[in-house]
């Protein structure tokens, strides 16, 4: 104990720097977890909340609308994990192969840019681009393909969510992988080149194995947010024709919980979401540990 205190005293500046981060997590992450008890209570603004037991969960699970939005959330999240997760890895591998400094910087800046746009702006861009007389349909018409109204098509709208999210986040998410690639010793590549390894072989035998820990960690952490299928995105891209395909848990909770002031109901839905995220994180972590020896901790 004394040794620990001594170490803290000698590194007090480092601990001081840690303090704002810890305070942030306590206020915005730990205290809300404690307040999740609201899911088991009826909320009152003035006075004590009253105990409601599992009432809100019963209402939640008995609602057919909830089951539909849950299904949409799982489908959209799965599509995003499968199709979006590998893109930043591929992009980082491609960017790391670009030799020209200015061109590399240009590519990186252009790919990061959409991350800084709000979903209101992105929705405007995509709605215009995918409209029957928008840019994408002009390209289709050039190849003698008929125009399609992607935004109101039940068959395409989930793909619109996947591709618009991919466009927005691929560049930004690749930063982590680019940083991991830059940490790889250049000597390894030099040695491989001397042994006659091709660019592809260097990527396969040096870069990818070095990226494995980062990829696994990011994947497991991403799974924790599996049930967050993208409120802002769906809210801005939804229209009457595609409600049944992209109405997700978050938009449902927003309508029923926040707009109608049903806070306990909204908390019950969020707790359910959080519980699934926790199970997914722990499950994937232990599975990954067993299979690859790598996990989050």
């Amino acid at each position: 104990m004394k040794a620990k205190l001594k170490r803290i005293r000698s590194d007090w500046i480092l601990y001081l720097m840690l303090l704002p981060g810890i305070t942030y997590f306590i206020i915005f992450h730990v205290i809300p977890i404690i307040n999740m008890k609201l899911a088991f209570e009826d909320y009152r603004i003035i006075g004590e909340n009253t105990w409601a037991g599992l009432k809100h969960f019963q209402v939640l699970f008995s609602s057919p609308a909830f089951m539909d939005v849950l299904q949409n959330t799982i489908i959209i999240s799965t599509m995003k994990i499968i199709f979006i997760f590998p893109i930043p890895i591929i992009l980082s591998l491609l960017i790391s192969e670009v030799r020209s400094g200015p061109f590399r910087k240009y590519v990186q800046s252009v790919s990061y840019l959409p991350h800084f746009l709000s979903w209101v702006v992105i929705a405007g861009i995509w709605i215009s681009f995918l409209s029957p007389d928008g840019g994408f349909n002009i390209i289709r018409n050039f190849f003698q393909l008929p125009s399609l109204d992607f935004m109101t098509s039940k068959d395409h709208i989930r793909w619109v969510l996947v591709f618009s999210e991919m466009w927005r986040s691929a560049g930004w998410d690749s930063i982590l992988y680019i940083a991991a690639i830059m940490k790889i010793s250049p000597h390894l590549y030099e040695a491989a080149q001397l042994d006659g390894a091709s660019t592809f072989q260097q990527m396969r035998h040096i870069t990818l194995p070095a990226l494995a820990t980062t990829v696994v960690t990011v994947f497991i952490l991403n799974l924790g947010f599996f049930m967050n299928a993208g409120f802002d995105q769906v809210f801005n891209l939804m229209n009457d024709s595609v409600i049944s395909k992209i109405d997700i848990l978050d938009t449902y909770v927003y309508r029923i919980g926040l707009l109608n002031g049903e806070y306990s109901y909204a908390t019950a839905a969020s707790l359910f979401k959080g519980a699934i995220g926790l199970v997914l994180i722990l499950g994937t972590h232990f599975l990954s540990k067993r299979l690859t020896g790598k996990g989050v901790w």
Partner: protein
Amino acid sequence: MKKIKFLLIALLFIGLLAACSSDEEPQAEVTEDGKTIIKVAFKDDGPSNPNAVKYYETLAEKLKEDKDLDVQFELLEVAQGDYSEKLSLLLNSGEIPDLIYFQGGDQQIANQDLLVDLRPYIEESEYLKDILQPHNELRLDNYPYLLWVKPIDYKVPVVRQDILNELSTADALLADPTIENYKSLFEEIVETGNADYAMTVAGDIAELDFIFENAFGINQTWLETDDGYVFSKVSEQEKEKLAFYRELYEEGLLDNQYLTKQWDTKEDAFYDGKAGVIVGTNGKVVDFYNTRVKEVNGEEAELAVLPPAKGIYQGFGASDVTKESRGVAISAVSPNKDLVFEILDYLASPEGQQFDRLGFEGEHHNETDDSIELTDAYYSDWYARYWEPVDVEFTKPISEETPMLSKPGLESEQLASEYFAEDNTFILPQESISQWDAMENLYREYSADIITGKLPLDAFEDFVEEWYAAGGTELTELANETIK
């Protein structure tokens, strides 16, 4: 030393607990110079808005001058974003101002007895009781916590006068606005190249309904039949209405991208000449459209207001009288309830109306010996935050040179008031809200798919079946028990 520290901490805790568990009535807060502090939460009127600060400072001065009331307003900053959501979060945090403007989300607060029943106050009032509009009285009877004295808020169709003058079908429509005459006008707008499509709406068909729903026989939310009340959206009349909208869509008269239109892109389509007709809330909004369309297309583009379609009935729809959808409320836990109402009553007086509706003297209006002249700043910047009764009295008449509303703005207000009709809908029980949400979504999706041709018209029967299965049967039973 340790004991002293322990004692101090214990005392601090006891003090805190005592403060938290106090059952005493809240005391009115006063400033050092004896003014009562009135906390206000109002959309866009936070302390960071200099216009709002000036408004409430001037109001406080006028209250002192005209009523000898010593008040100081404290504006609360409601976070940016959806107002009803952010206000709801503010109130649920326990911060309940004396005077609150709601734009939804009030029912949950009223259910917890945190809003004042305004009826006894209004009965005793000096001015407010005389400016209530018929719809206000009905709504107050059903839900006495919100007050919003404004003209009835129907949306009315408008078209550019210069385009209307060119159309041979215009006279027939204005003389007899049947569904057929409306369609002929729409066809001519497109055929003559005056617009790409005759009409656009923002995202759903609610705006189209303002023009056509009555003509198809839908004059209330619950239609009376021989077998009792039937929800209008599952009626045969609804099917006929959807068939007509489908026709408009197929023939390119209704904007084929209306589903992805927002209010701003809808307005842009009208100003840019892509859409021939749009609807706008009567009064100030039509006035705003008129100013904007003339800026873009010249003076001759002044708006003309069109009447609602005539068929089985004629009107802009039935107005929900279960409650105000927005309005001002007084906190039931406020120590200043009487004073807050006195302020609201003052705003209904000739002096209060002159200030709230006409703005600052010398900036938004100028007083001459016998009249009030409005300035350009009035038309571009000013809006009444509180009451806007149709018949208004100021200390002097408004100069005929500078009317409060443009011709189309005034016409739209008169037309809306002429067609006021009461709806028979009722407030849903809180536990049915998630069910209602699912049923509404079902309608929105089926109606959109039928209109856009993704589903055949016969799919309406599937929708009716699904709607009843999703809770419509219970809701219809409730309606038949509730509606007298």
